[in-house]
């Protein structure tokens, strides 16, 4: 690869960290030291408990790799988020009950067919839609 080509990568990952690290300023370090854009999609961080964060990281590929090394060194487990929310069209009846639950517009109704459409890229895995589906057509895969 030629010099000067900067490979920018984007990754959705899950950080799991032990209670001792809950107070560690992780996002600050990632931004400051590794020049990453950090978008927190979901976080459960309770003092004296395990913490978990779903984040989207964007930056130079080499910086991303260095950041993962830092995180692992610091005792934070990093898992790739393969598939987060699943919409199962074979179970969906397109009732649209889930649509007003979704804060990002990831769930919407096709104006022509009146069928439900799920845009994976807009989903922040907040899980707000799950209880509204009476047909088990929405599941999270955490």
């Amino acid at each position, binding site marked *: 690869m030629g010099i000067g080509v900067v490979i920018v990568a984007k990754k959705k990952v899950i950080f799991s960290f032990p209670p001792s690290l809950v107070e560690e300023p992780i996002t600050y370090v990632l931004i400051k030291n590794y020049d990453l854009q950090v978008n927190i999609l979901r976080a459960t961080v309770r003092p004296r408990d395990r913490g978990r964060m779903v984040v989207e990281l964007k930056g130079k590929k080499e910086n991303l790799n260095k950041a993962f090394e830092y995180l692992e060194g610091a005792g934070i487990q990093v898992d790739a988020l393969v598939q987060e929310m699943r919409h199962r069209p074979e179970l969906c*009846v*397109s*009732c*649209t*009950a889930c*649509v*007003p*639950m979704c804060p990002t517009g990831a769930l919407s109704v096709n104006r022509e067919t009146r069928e439900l459409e799920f845009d994976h890229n807009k989903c922040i895995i907040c899980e707000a839609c799950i209880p509204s589906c*009476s*047909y088990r057509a929405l599941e999270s895969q955490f």
Partner: protein
Amino acid sequence: MLRTIEQINAKIKSGKIVVATAEEVVGLVNEKGVKRAAKEVDVVTTGTFGPMCSSGAYFNIKQSTPKIKLGGGRVTLNGVVAYAGWAAADILIGANALPDDDPRNAVYPGLFKYGGAHIIEDLLAGKKVRLEAKAYGTDCYPRKEYSAELGLEDFNNAVLFNPRNCYQLYNVAVNLSERTIYTYMGVLKPRLGNANYSTTGALSPLLKDPELRTIGIGTRVFMGGGEAYVAFNGTQHVPNPERDANGLPLSPSATLALIGDLKTMDTRFVRAASVIGYTSTLALGVGVPIPIVDEKVMAQAALADEDITYPIVEYSESYPLGRPGNLGRVSMAQLMSGRIEVDGKKVPTGGMASRAKGRAVALELKRLISEGRFLLTQATAPLPGAALAWEEEA
């Protein structure tokens, strides 16, 4: 009268019938006017699909030796409690029935993962369910316990029966309180977080013949993928509601009691649903064919989503306490736009009934009629408050 049911059926048999869905005739009437549309189209098909809680199925079991009398005993299907208050071999399972050990809303909001509706769905999907029965034993039916794995074909009869179905016009539900509530209209977020509706609008069977001039006792309908009949008026049927200029009722009014052979139905149009915090229930596809016997029938069958309006009702207090009044009215077109305005606030909308599936029902019924596989019946008696078109004074 433009045509009789007999003439319509003759055209169906000869393959010359002209059928349009209730959505299709909206455009047709706009373009050509009621008179010409009524001349061209013989039958309009409607369709709805949504949770219909007042659903159940009754079964007649084949006896084994020695025989057992289930009536007065206790029967469960996959643990879900069935009704055994009938004769020796008849049991009924309601869509809302649950196993004894389901926590219901004791763990709030309840999930209602598996109930009577799921039994019906499982049977239709070709799965077997476990029947367990305890009886008191008689001289002619000595057996006291019985357990068997049964599939749909193992029953002598399996009949889907709905004491109340196809509600004509339904409320749009909102929540003005400070907490999320879990209702039969779905999850309602606090402070007008969403507005839920349960109707297929311009496809909704009883909104397309709002004065029930062609739908009565004995009308053959499409239900759950098979054939069914209007057995009677549904429970809670309101005979003489207040109406708008188009003849549409202003509040929930007419209902149908429907009955059909479960063995003819399929899971495309019969689905179990678990409505959080509320119940296990059965979602059903129902389509009613409307014979275009005169121009008035066509004019009403062609009412558009813009013409059909619903009352907005508050469900945290007003509905549970039975307070009269509403927060205004909105049209189906507004509901389908994704946002309505309530109290000056923009509120996102969600559905309980499926317009997409309602359309699939109407198209399926259209196909069946066009292919000569579904004949119309002439209702033998009107529903309370209604007069059938062919019985009106000329």
